[in-house]
Every structure is written in C-alpha cells, then in structure tokens.
C-alpha cells in the first residue's frame, strides 16, 4: 500500500495539467469539481498510505520510494522520490484533507468569476507543490515544492490582477520569500559540503557527526528560509498584504498549509537542531516575539481578513516557540488544530464577505448571526478554539506549547500567556463586531455614495446561480434576491451548501481536534505516532500533571478576561473604541513605512544610480570618452575614418599588441 505514495502528488498534478489544457472548456463549475475530485483522490490515497504505515511496527515506519534521478552531477545525486514517514504522512493528510474542503468551498465562492478555471489551475498546482514539499525524499525535492507553493501563492495573491494592490502584494510575497530561500539554498549548499548528499536519509541519520559550528550554521540558514515562508519576524510583512487574494486562498495557503511549511522544515531537521545548541533558543525567542508582536497588531485592525492574517502570524509564532522548546509534537499538534480553526475562520470570513457583497470592514458589519446562522455558529466554534477555551482543540495544543515553553524559560512562557490573553481579546472583538451588536451595515449601506455602490467589483461571487436550488433549501436566506437585487438595499445572506458544508466539517474538527493529544494518561496518539521522527530529542515535560492543569486554568482565566474586556468595549461600549485602537497598532507599528525607507527607497536609488550614472556615464562614458580623446588628439587617425569608436579600438588593439609582445620577449628570453 505504501507504493501508492507517488500517486498522492500525481493526482493534483494530473488535475493541473488537464485544467491547464481544457479548463476553459470545462468551465464553471465542472472545472472546480474536477479539481476538488483530484485533491479528494489524493486524500483517499494518503489514507491508504497512512494505513499501510500504521500496519508496520513502530520502528519500521519509514519508506523511501525513489522514482528517478533528478539531478546527477558528480558527487551530487539528487533523486526525485518520496519519504513516507509519520511526519510526512501527517502533513499530507491534513494538506489533502483541508485542501479538499477548501476546494469544495471554492466551487461556490468563485462561482461567476472571470478567472474561475484559472483559479483551480493554480489551486491544484499548489496542492501538488505542497505535497512535494512534505513528501519529498530530499532537501532539494522539498525546495522544489517550497518554491512551487511560493509561485502559486504569488499567482493567487495577484489573482485579481487588475486591482493595483493585488500584483504588488503578490510580488512582495514572492520577493520576501526569496530572502528566506536565500537561506534555504545556502543551508543546502552547506549540507552538501558536509555530507555529500541532499537525501534526507543520508543527512539526518548522520546528524550526530556534525560539529557544533556547522550544525548551527545549517540550522540558522534553514531557519531563515522557514522564517520567510512561515512569516516570522522580520520577514512576516508579506502575509498581511497577501490577503489581496481570494479568501479560499487565504484559508488554504496563508493559514492552513503553506505558511506552516517552515515549521515542518524545522521539525524535519530536528536531528540537526539537536546538535545546534543555541539555535533552538533563537527560534523560540523569534517565535514568541512574533506571536506577541502580531497579536498586538491584530487588536486594532478593521479589515476582517487582516485580523486573521496577523492572528496567523501570531499562531505560527507559537509553533516556532514550540520548536525552539524542543516540543516538536506540540508544534505539529498546534499546526493541525490551527489548520482546522484558522481555515474555518477564513472560510467563515469569506462567507461573511460573500454575504455582505464584498464588504470587509468589520466596523460596517454587526448582528450578522441572525442572517448567517451556519456561518456564525461555526465561526463561534473556531473563536472558542483559538481563544483557548476548553474543550475546544486550540486549548489543548496551546496549553501543550506553553507547558513546554515554561521549561525552556519562564519569560518565554509569560510572553506566550500574554499573547493568549490578547488572542482571546482580538478574536472576541472580531466576533462581537461581526456577528453581534447593532446591524451597522444598514447605516453604512445608506451612507455609501451612489457611484461607489454602483461600482460593482469585477469579482462578484454570486452564490445564487451556482448551487442555487440547493442553496435555497439549506438556510439560503433570500439568496436570489440578494445577488440579483438592488445592492443599495441588500440583505446579508447565508452561503450555498458547497460553502457551508466545509464550514460544518471544519467546525467539528476544530471542536474535537484536541483529542489527538490530551495531557492525561498514557493515551497520546500523536506523540506515539511521531516518535520515530523526533525520537529522544523530544523535550520531556518537567511539570507534573497537576501543575500543568493549574497553569492551564490560569491561561483559561486570562482568556476569559480577554473576552470580557472585548465584550465591555465592543458590546457594552464602556470605553470608546478608538481609545483602544491606537494609530501605531492600526498602522502595524509602522514596519512597512520603515522597510520602505530603509530598504526599498535606498535600493531603488542605488539601482537608478547604477543604471543611469555608473553604467551609462562612467563605464560606457569611459568607452566613448577614451574614443573621443583619441579622435581629438590625432588628426591622422581622424583622417582614416569618421567612426570614432574605431579609432579607439585601433589604439587599444595596438597598445595591447605592444604590451603582449613585450611580455613575450621578456618571458621567452
């Protein structure tokens, strides 16, 4: 059964090729269904491989399937193949699982868009690349997927390429990620220098032979790559902008899967990290700092997706905190639960945006729970999960990380706990602003000026026409009227079942996902399962069970306090909203302007100076200048021809001849 591994990425690849060639003919919605089917097939295949791996004994859960030699060059032999082990299968399971749900959701969400089939072309290519990333048997294969998901991310962020902001955001994502890739590449070079191979089995098994300095260098370089892909300080700046992409993309790529690739890479190289001493501490510090930093920004954003973007950065910070604390299982655990609840939050947000006719400003929402029952109930489940309220999944995974962080350093733990409080606060703020309180959209709809209301964005994911008949049956409140009626008097509406079904499934997973790894007893399936990958390098908690429960209760209380404060401000209106949303947070600590001033502007000046002064005036000027000099100086040469460069050339040539002749005479003599 393990031999089916190649089929996992092959199916989405096939989908990509078919859609690329025939997607336009298949059209809407057949193209979407085909894409979804391919990913679902990959999911089923992964299940088969998973059961095959389960059937093997704990020590024997490693299977390498090499298809062909990709790059043979002397001492470097890179194979295209797959490393099937508990880590890669876990990743593949949730990538294909969540991927299938989001594909399904997109069938409804993207309905009516001009680029419908193009969207699914990219989406299937993304899934293929992501699977190559997690399943490949070599660093270079992972890098292939790594760059592939980066390219897909670029395509999909700039999907609505006619809007000025989208292409800029896509470019920013690609370039920022390339900074990280610079580290990844150098890391691979150093690995090759040291081990003579890039295959995981050749490298990781021998990590124990590394010197401390080499291990540190490799780990640091790969961490640079991870920080780019997983949006950590200081390379996180592309992720908030990435929200220009369609919302399913934000859910799939910029929340659940691609951005966790850095965490995956760090867990994959845990044998190297074990030799790298201080690097783990650095990772933990960067993770904790990112978690807190991004959480503060999330408290003051008005755009429903921007809040979630900063929240994602913050949660990824938790995962790196876990990696740095040696809690690899906790990192993967949180990665999985986060995939559930954050994908759900994004899809819920997409449903809201959809129902509100492309409104993303939370200050223009409110009271939507009565209009969008399924969306709001599922969103609330995700909210409780991310806020860390037991028994929802986020509580368990976050608690696992915090307990390990305590062992690493109480300061890191404190940062994590404060972040947890902030998380509860900003997520509650979002839920209250969107689903509770006054229906502010009624006012803002009237307030909006006529032309703005008429200027329908080119993207109108009209729900009604697609699964229209079905939609009407399932809570589709006023669907047809909403999408075809008068937009100035619109009413929010629930989304069609292709969109709400994934919400319900994800909500169920977000609720019970914690069962993967509970802190009591000996039944910890995720830890047992991942044991072959992390071995004895996994940090053993020093806290006793009861202490851990006490700490966890403290965190829950803090989360409740966060919720209460948000309630008082945004529903109770005890404090003016503006006073808790300072400009410095609204502008995200001014990091973008800072980068523009320190990197972008000087860079552009340098480029202009190089091109229009150094190259044009100095270097080329010297060429033409020497020529003019020659022409000016020698009338005899001028008489020969009018082309002045010629004269210069002649002068140089004869000079060189003399020079070489001199040397030869001396050298020969």
């Amino acid at each position, binding site marked *: 059964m393990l031999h089916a591994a190649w089929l996992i990425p092959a199916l989405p690849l096939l989908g990509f090729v078919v859609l690329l060639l025939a997607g336009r003919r298949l059209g809407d919605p057949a193209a979407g269904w085909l894409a979804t089917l391919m990913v679902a097939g990959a999911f089923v295949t992964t299940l088969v491989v998973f059961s095959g791996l389960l059937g093997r004994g704990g020590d024997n859960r490693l299977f390498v399937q090499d298809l062909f030699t990709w790059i043979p060059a*002397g001492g470097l032999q890179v194979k295209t193949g797959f490393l099937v082990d508990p880590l890669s299968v876990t990743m593949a399971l949730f990538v294909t699982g969540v991927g299938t749900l989001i594909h399904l959701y997109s069938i409804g969400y993207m309905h009516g868009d001009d680029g419908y089939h193009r969207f699914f072309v990219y989406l299937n290519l993304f899934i293929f690349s992501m699977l190559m990333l997690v399943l490949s048997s070599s660093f270079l294969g992972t890098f292939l997927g790594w760059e592939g998901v980066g390219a897909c991310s670029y395509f999909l962020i700039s999907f609505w*390429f006619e809007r000025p902001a989208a292409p800029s955001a896509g470019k920013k994502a690609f370039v920022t990620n390339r900074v990280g890739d610079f580290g990844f590449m150098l890391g691979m070079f150093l690995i090759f220098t040291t081990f003579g191979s890039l295959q995981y089995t050749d490298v990781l098994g021998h990590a124990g*032979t590394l010197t401390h300095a080499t291990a540190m260098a490799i780990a640091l370089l790969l961490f640079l790559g991870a920080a780019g892909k997983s949006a950590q300080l200081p390379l996180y700046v592309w992720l908030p902008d990435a929200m220009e992409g369609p919302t399913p993309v934000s859910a799939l790529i910029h929340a659940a899967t691609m951005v966790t690739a850095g965490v995956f890479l760090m867990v994959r190289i845990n044998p190297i990290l074990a030799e790298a001493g201080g690097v783990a501490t650095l990772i933990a510090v960067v993770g904790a700092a990112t978690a807190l930093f991004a959480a503060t920004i999330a408290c003051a954003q008005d755009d429903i997706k921007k809040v979630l973007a900063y929240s994602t950065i913050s949660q990824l910070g938790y995962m790196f905190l876990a990696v740095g604390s040696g809690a690899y299982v906790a990192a993967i655990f949180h990665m999985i639960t986060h995939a559930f609840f954050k994908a759900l939050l994004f899809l819920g947000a997409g449903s809201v945006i959809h129902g509100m006719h492309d409104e993303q400003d939370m200050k223009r929402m409110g009271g939507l729970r009565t209009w969008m029952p399924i969306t709001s109930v599922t969103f609330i489940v995700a909210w409780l999960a991310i806020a860390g309220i037991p028994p929802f999944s986020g509580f368990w995974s976050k608690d696992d990380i915090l307990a390990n962080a305590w062992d690493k350093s109480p300061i890191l733990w404190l940062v994590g706990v404060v972040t947890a409080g902030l998380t509860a606060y900003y997520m509650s703020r979002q839920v209250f602003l969107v689903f509770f309180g006054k229906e502010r959209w009624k006012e803002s709809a009237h307030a909006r000026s006529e032309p703005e209301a008429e200027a329908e964005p080119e993207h109108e994911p009209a729900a009604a026409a697609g699964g229209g008949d079905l939609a009407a049956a399932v809570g589709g409140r006023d669907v047809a009227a909403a999408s075809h009626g008068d937009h100035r008097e619109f009413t929010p509406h629930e989304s069609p079942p292709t969109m709400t079904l994934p919400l319900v499934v994800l909500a169920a997973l977000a609720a019970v996902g914690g069962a993967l790894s509970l802190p009591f007893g000996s039944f910890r399936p995720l830890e047992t399962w991942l044991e072959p990958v992390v071995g004895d390098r996994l940090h053993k908690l020093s806290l006793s069970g009861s202490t851990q429960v006490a700490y966890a209760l403290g965190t829950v209380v803090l989360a409740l306090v966060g919720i209460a404060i948000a309630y008082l401000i945004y529903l109770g209106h005890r404090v003016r909203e503006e006073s808790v949303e300072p400009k410095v947070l609204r502008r995200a600590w001014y990091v973008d302007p800072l980068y523009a001033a320190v990197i972008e502007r000087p860079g552009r000046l340098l480029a*202009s100076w190089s091109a229009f002064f150094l190259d044009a005036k100095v270097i080329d000027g010297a060429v033409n200048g020497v020529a003019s000099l020659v022409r000016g100086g020698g009338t005899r040469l001028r008489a020969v021809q009018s082309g002045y460069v010629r004269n210069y050339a002649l002068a140089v040539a004869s000079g060189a001849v003399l020079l070489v002749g001199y040397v030869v005479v001396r050298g020969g003599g």
Partner: protein
Amino acid sequence: MAGFPYLTSLVVVPAVGAAAVAVVPRDRDDVVRAVGLVASLAALVIGVAMLVQFDGGLGSFQMVSHHQWIPDWGISFTLGIDGISVFLVLLSTLLFPIAIAGPTVHRDYKGYVAWMLLLEAGCIGVFLSLDLFLFFLFWEIVLVPMYFLIGGWGYDRRVYAALKFFLFTMVGSGLMLVGILVLVFLHERATGVLTFDLVTLARDQSLAQTTAKWVFLAFAASFAIKVPIFPLHTWLPDAHTEAPTGGSVILAGILLKLGTYGFLRFGLYLFPQAVVDLAPLFLTLGVIGIIYGAVVAIVQRDLKRLVAYSSVAHLGFIVVGIFGLSTQGLQGGVLQMVNHGLSTGALFLLVGMIYERRHTRQIAELGGIQKVAPVFAGVFMLVMLSSIGLPGLNGFVGEFLVLIGTFVTHRWWTVVATAGVILAAIYMLWAYQRVFQGRPEGANTVFAEMSWREWAVMAPLLGFIVFLGVYPKPVLDRIQPTVDALVRHVEDHSDYREPAVNRGRVDARPADGGKGAAGAEGATGIGTGR
C-alpha cells in the same frame, strides 16, 4: 551511419544554404524562406542524428574529422565534439531555424536569411574547431554577419550599436590573435613542433607560468568581451536593444556562449595553472556581473534592455561555474549556457511579439495585457519563471549546480552570488506587473493572442524549458565525462585539487563514531575555509 561526416556537414550545410539564398531573386521571399528553412532544418536533423551517434560515456573528442590544410604552418582542418560542445551545437541548430522563420522581417528578407545562415555556419564552426587557426577564422566569421544583421535590420540607433559591437569584439580578437601566435611559436621553440592543434598544445603545456598567465589574459580579454564580463558589457545592451528580434535571439542564445565556451575550451584546457591562479579575479567579476546586471535591470525602462541586463546577470552565473572549477559548477555552467539560450531566446521572441503588436518596448507604455491576451501572458510567465530559476524549470538546475558546486570550492563568492536569486525575482516580477497586470487602457486594450506561427516558434522552446527542468539527466549524463576529464586535466597541470565531495569519489560522509567532522572537513580540501 558511423562514417557520415556529421561535423563537417553541420558547418557546410548552412554555408551552402547561405550561398543558395544568395542566388535566389530578390523578390521571391517565399523561396528564400523555403531555402533558409530547409538548410537550417537540415542542420537540425544532422545535429539530432549526431546526438544519437554521440557516445555519452566518452570524455574525449569524438567524431573527429581531420584534414591537412596548411601543413607548413601546422594548420589543419580539425573538427571534433565532446560533452561540452555537443549541446551548444544542438542549441544552435535549434535556435537558427527559429530566428530565420519566427520573427517578422520587414525589409530585405533575402539578405537577412543569407547572413543568418552564414552566422550559423560560423557559430557551429567555433564550437567544433580543434585547431586554433580554424577556431580564430570561425570566430572572426561570426562577427561579420552579426554586424550586418544589427546594422541592416535593427532599430533607430542600429549603426552606433553595430559599430560598438564590432569594435569591442575586434579589440578582443586582436588580443586573442596575438595570444594564439605567441602560444604556437613558444610551443615550437620548446618542442620543435609548429602546430595549431588544440589537443597537442594542451597536452604539452610548454609555456612558462608567467608567460602562460599573460597569454591566457590575451585570450580572456576576447572571451570576456564576448560573454560579456563586467565591466566590458556596455556593448551588449545597445546591441540587444537595436538588433532585430532574430538577431537578439542569436546574440543572446549563441554568441554570448562563444565567450563562456572559449573559457572552457581554451582557457581551462590550455592554461590550467593560469586559470587556477586567476580564478579569484574572474569569480569576483562574475559575482559582480550577477549582482550588477540584476540591479541595473531593475530600473530599465525598455523591456528589451531589461532582458539584456538580465543576460549579464545570467552569464555571471556561468562564469562563476566555470572558474569555481568544481564538477557541479562546470556541468551547471554548460547546462546554463543551453538554458540561457532557451529562456532568454524565448524572452526576446516574446518581447519581439509585443513590439510587433504595440510598436513599443517602453514598459511605461504597456499594461494590463494579461486581461486582453491571457494565453500570451501565461507563456511569458512560464519563460519568466524559467529565467528567475524556479525549480521544475530548466533555469534552476543550471543555476543550482553552479552555486552548490562553487560553494564547496569558493564559499564566500557563492554566498554573494546566491543573493542574485532575490534580485532576479525583483526585476522580472516588477516588469511583469507593469506590462501584464493592472487594467489595460488605450492602445493596450487590443492585443492579439499568439498566432499559430508564433506557437510553432515558441513550442519547442517551452517544451525544453519544462523538460530540462524535470529531467535534465540525459543532458547532464552526457556532459559529465567531459567535465570530469577537464577537471582531471586541470588537476594534472596545476596545483589545484578538487574537493572529494564534488567528485563523489570517496564517501565524504563523516565516519561513524564520535564527532568525526574533522575528517569530513579535511576531506573537502581547499577553499572550504573554515
């Protein structure tokens, strides 16, 4: 078919084609096109048949055809091929039919085709010559058609650009001629044999070290101008911008490779110790080229000029691969020559198509084309990603091999060179954004999709771009023995020793038992500079 004179016919067929075109009446463009296509496609067919006969396991010259020419001076007509030249010859036979039949030529098609075919004969001759005199002859022949192609079929400042191209190259040629003569005469003085035969000269290594260094520099000046290596590059943007589309395709695809090929075939082969001694200089210039070319490309306003500067950066990678003197770097360098020919050739064709439609190459005057012509934009995107070096496409494999191989031998140069991958993304994506994204306005609202003829021209390039990215093995396997032999040759005639990791001769992995890294590091040899 083993006895068939593949190499000679590869040179003769295009030359005969050129002569045939010359006698066609001036007003019969259809006949001209037919003759041009038949001749260049015949060369392609011969090239492919030659590849089938090519023994990929051999590291030495094969299919050698040797004829006495001027025996008194030791000059012979000797052609031969090996793993380094074989794919460059094939690239030539692929790109010339494209340059002949692909772009629209607006005046004197007959002259255009005749010069193109003569140029093809010259280029292939350079790649195949094993006699220094013959090599120099072909090297000079190449110059003439290119000069007339730029000057006769180019754009506004074509005369200036053509002259600049011609004179820059002539300066180099003059130096190289002196170098060749010095080498041959000193060889005669040392051994008593007067010969221009490359293999003999390389084997005997008759020059004193200091002399060898100077003679190498005379060769290198010529090659460096052709590549071009910073700061000798300023003829390139002018020549590219003013040349007709087909001229740019050949200029970037083939002519620049003459320089890097020269370094490999004549630099490393004839002057190993000099190359080893001067490697830091050329590595530095190569790295500067990578960074500088990319930085300058960012702010270019003319799309063609932007691609030209990107060539400076790409060729920098090849230079780094050659002077890094590692197996991977050399293999990657050779592969990258082919890759650059494919992707930059394709880019110039696409820019030419844009010009045909919009009569401008100014980036500021374009915009939103993806909306009007999504398929065209998709093709451009693919080629662009190949140029950026996205894994899975051809550009990555060459670039990666160059960097990983050179990292082992010359670490810090590689670190800077790797930064070039960031810059490549900046200039390409920004250009794509301004040309293809956004909302189309004014004249940009009309933009025809790819025609069938354009597809026919692009399809083979796109096919190879993908194929070489996914499965470069057939090519790398055939390059490897020659590169191995070349590295051995350099080691035999210099104090250079390639690190074991690159060669894969010894299991470089640290031995089990304790922190065995000292042994592993020691085994990686020079240049790892810990």
